[in-house]
């Protein structure tokens, strides 16, 4: 299974600023995903990022707020723009690294973001 590294692991930011989160994978993968997890709650998909195409956003998430880059098959970034306290959350990336018809996602450890 793929090994995923996320940076930073945590950050405290001021409202109105932006933070870019990096996701690095140790092997080439086609599909990467970005999730948000409020403390103690479930995982909510923000967007799907495939190399060579525009990211696909889920309902309630927009590119201006969460721009995503996917420059190659091992790396992606998520930017949280113009932050407010409501953006305080854990942001996780995952990659699809399944076998045949089994679409298995593996997760990074997440970035814990606090906005003051």
């Amino acid at each position: 299974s793929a090994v995923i590294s996320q940076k930073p692991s945590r950050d405290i930011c001021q409202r109105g600023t932006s933070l870019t989160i990096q996701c690095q994978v140790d092997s080439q993968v086609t599909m990467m995903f970005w999730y948000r997890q409020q403390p103690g709650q479930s995982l909510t998909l923000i967007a799907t990022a495939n190399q060579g195409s525009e990211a696909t956003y889920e309902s309630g998430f927009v590119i201006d707020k969460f721009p995503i880059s996917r420059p190659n098959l091992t790396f992606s970034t998520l930017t949280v723009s113009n932050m407010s306290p409501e953006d305080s959350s854990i942001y996780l990336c995952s990659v699809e690294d399944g076998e045949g018809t089994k679409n298995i996602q593996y997760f990074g450890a997440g970035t814990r973001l606090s906005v003051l």
Partner: protein
Amino acid sequence: QQPVQSPQAVILREGEDAVINCSSSKALYSVHWYRQKHGEAPVFLMILLKGGEQKGHDKISASFNEKKQQSSLYLTASQLSYSGTYFCGTEIESNDYKLSFGAGTTVTVRA
């Protein structure tokens, strides 16, 4: 649409068994089970494809009833290491690789 998980929480003593349920209102292609410990990444446990198969991972197993769009995770002879929050993730028939996760079930195993 988010699958429904039950129970919300369960407390066990070592050696006891538990069942976690996950149900969907939509036809499913697959069900995925993850365990997450506090402050850590969700860890993949197993995937079940439609076909009613039952999978196992050590003393943790799961089943998938595709007619009812329900899956159950069975924790047998629980160990302290089983503590954590269990999430089911569902993938719908369109097979677009996207997972919808349930709200989670917090399992606490005590000595």
